[in-house]
């Protein structure tokens, strides 16, 4: 039977999955919701005569599976967001009467690594450094106070001034149910408050206490595994430049570059360490897809594992841009699909080499000066330069006005530059940003703002501890 992939996503990632399918000679089917008709993720496949189905929502599992059956698909690619890290969806896809291939890790892996505290416990047991604090949820006030005291003392010993802890709901996430405490006397009242909040909101009143780390870089390790236990990495990324809502704006591969800037620690040693630890956990759980291990690295060069993202990410491509498998640049989505279809890697870590620096810019319609407020409106002009070192990933058409749908984040495009070193990549980054024009208007008739100026301002800060 000929394989056919249902692409259960929208925007640039849907387009990247289509490209990967085409490169692998796979057929594919596209879904969309009203409001996305203008998106290139619908228009391009339509023009090629590919099946495009209108569904009720990208979060409607029944619609996605009904379309998959109707279109005789054999696999589902969830992209990122939506169902990508929903183990129940992944399980349903493979266990239903008409089972399909879920392009991602086994559902058990998604379940086990999807829970932050579980990751912390697994990592702790394997001797992988995690943020100092509790590794199981606390339910008792006295225990919480004792733990907090221990963490305050630990920080004083480390010379961290002023010492602070975070008290957060174990079941929380995305900044909900989390408070900062710098006074031991406040631990009990805050613990009680968070506990009742967690009970109300998440139905589980477990609370976690950990050291509040402020001065750090956000690093990532790109992993690829498969069902045969083959496991490789594609280096590291640095995603420290983020909006106030902790959304990434600029990503760089590799994660540190001692030739570009000085570090108060042995940067290469830290990178090697986080790669080694990430592979250890991946090997332990039998990781069988592409995945990202997220780390915090403090100014003192101490790394702590934060979480695992069991999916393809927005920024995976910068890792591919600096990697060479036997001299050839990989496509990580193709590798992910091959792993899901049960193919062997055909190479080992020794065959992978790294070359140069890659930077990704996320172009977004937002008002950076007002808390990165997302904006809607119509884009009338969208132009970017063309260079062999530049790749632009976008679903926004250039030949007609485009209305930004309001149901999703207003991400417009990804600009990915490559340079033989970080200095060249940075210069090319400026060249890309200078040459990119996005014009439009908001529903009120005001000019549409984008974050291009912000990206220019932040570009000189990459990879540096300022």
């Amino acid at each position: 039977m000929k394989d056919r992939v249902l692409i259960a996503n929208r925007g640039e990632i849907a387009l990247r999955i289509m490209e990967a399918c085409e490169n692998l000679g796979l057929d594919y089917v596209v879904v969309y919701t009203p409001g996305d008709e203008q998106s290139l993720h619908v228009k391009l496949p339509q023009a090629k005569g590919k099946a495009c189905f209108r569904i009720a929502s990208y979060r409607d599992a029944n619609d996605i599976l009904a379309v998959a059956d109707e279109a005789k698909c054999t696999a589902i690619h969830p992209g990122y967001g939506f169902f990508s890290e929903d183990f129940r969806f992944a399980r349903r896809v493979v266990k239903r009467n008409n089972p399909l291939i879920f392009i991602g890790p086994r559902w058990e892996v998604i379940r086990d690594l999807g829970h932050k505290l579980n990751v912390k416990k697994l990592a702790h047991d394997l001797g992988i450094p995690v943020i100092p604090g509790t590794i199981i949820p606390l339910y008792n006030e006295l225990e919480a106070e004792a733990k907090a005291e221990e963490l305050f003392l630990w920080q004083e010993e480390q010379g961290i001034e002023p010492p602070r802890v975070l008290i957060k709901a174990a079941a929380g996430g995305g900044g909900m149910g989390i408070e900062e405490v710098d006074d031991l006397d406040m631990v009990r009242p805050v613990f009680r408050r968070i506990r009742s909040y967690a009970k109300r909101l998440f139905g589980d009143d477990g609370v976690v206490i950990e050291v509040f780390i402020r001065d750090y870089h956000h690093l990532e390790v790109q992993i690829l595994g498969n069902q045969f236990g083959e496991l490789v990495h594609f280096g590291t990324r640095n995603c420290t430049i983020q909006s106030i809502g902790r959304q990434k704006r600029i990503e760089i591969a590799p994660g540190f570059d001692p030739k570009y800037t000085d570090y108060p620690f042995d940067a290469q040693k830290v990178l090697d360490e986080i790669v080694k630890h990430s592979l250890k956990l991946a090997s332990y759980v039998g990781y069988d897809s592409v995945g990202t291990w997220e780390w915090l690295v403090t100014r003192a060069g101490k790394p702590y594992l934060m979480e695992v993202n069991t999916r393809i990410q927005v920024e995976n491509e910068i890792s591919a841009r600096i990697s060479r498998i036997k001299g050839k640049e990989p496509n990580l989505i193709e590798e992910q699909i091959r792993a899901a279809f049960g193919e062997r890697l055909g190479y080992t870590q020794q065959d992978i080499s790294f070359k140069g620096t890659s930077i990704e810019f996320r172009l977004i319609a937002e008002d950076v000066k007002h808390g990165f407020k997302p904006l809607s409106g119509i884009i009338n002009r969208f132009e970017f330069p063309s260079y062999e070192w530049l790749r632009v990933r976008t679903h926004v058409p250039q030949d007609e006005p485009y209305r930004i749908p309001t149901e999703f984040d207003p991400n417009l495009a990804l600009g990915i530059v490559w340079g033989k070193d970080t200095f060249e990549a940075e210069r090319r980054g400026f060249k890309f940003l200078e040459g990119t024009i996005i014009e439009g208007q908001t529903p009120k008739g005001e000019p549409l703002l984008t974050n291009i100026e912000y990206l220019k301002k932040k570009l000189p800060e990459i990879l540096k501890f300022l």
Partner: protein
Amino acid sequence: MALDNRKINQLLQSFRANPYRIFVVVTPHTGYLREFLVKEGDEVKGPTGKWLEKLGTPLFILEREKNPKTIRAKASGIVSKVNYELEGRFVEAFEPVLEIKHSLTQKEIIAELLRKTLHIVTAPEKARYFLSPELAKKIEKEGEGKVVVKPGEELAIMSFMKRETPILHEGPPMVVFRVFFSQGQMIEQGEPLFGLCLENERPYVEKLISRVKEEWPA
């Protein structure tokens, strides 16, 4: 002044000339359209009862993931068009299936009139809207058409691109006469959210409503 007698007369006249609306019934999601349960010319009823607990007339059966679902009429009227060719086929979400010619009710005429006569607060963006919890509580206690909002008070919460923005009342204190959306409803930009009137305009609005009630008995 939003209340213009001439405009109101024109509106009432247009309702008299054409007291119908066409409702297009679309598929709520994908699936196989197994069977039509009505034909052109049939009379159908929308949901009735105090809490709309009595379901509308069954229109067709849509089966998805082996789960047949009866799609029912949401408005009363005469089935004016049926896309028979869809029978037995797999349909996409939001596919037009049939049309219902619906005679406007007294309540609907009042609602349309109010949309055109009151001071309207429109949706600034296409987004989901939620009535402000405090306002909702007050309306529940005092009833629609009674609660006064002061400048700066929160009318609604707009949920837009994963963020929530309050919509505040601007201008003089006004009566919240009508709320035109249900909790969490997706509203197109520019569509009405609230109909407000000044305290001294309220007698006119109430008179207008009783006039409609006389002309179009329920």
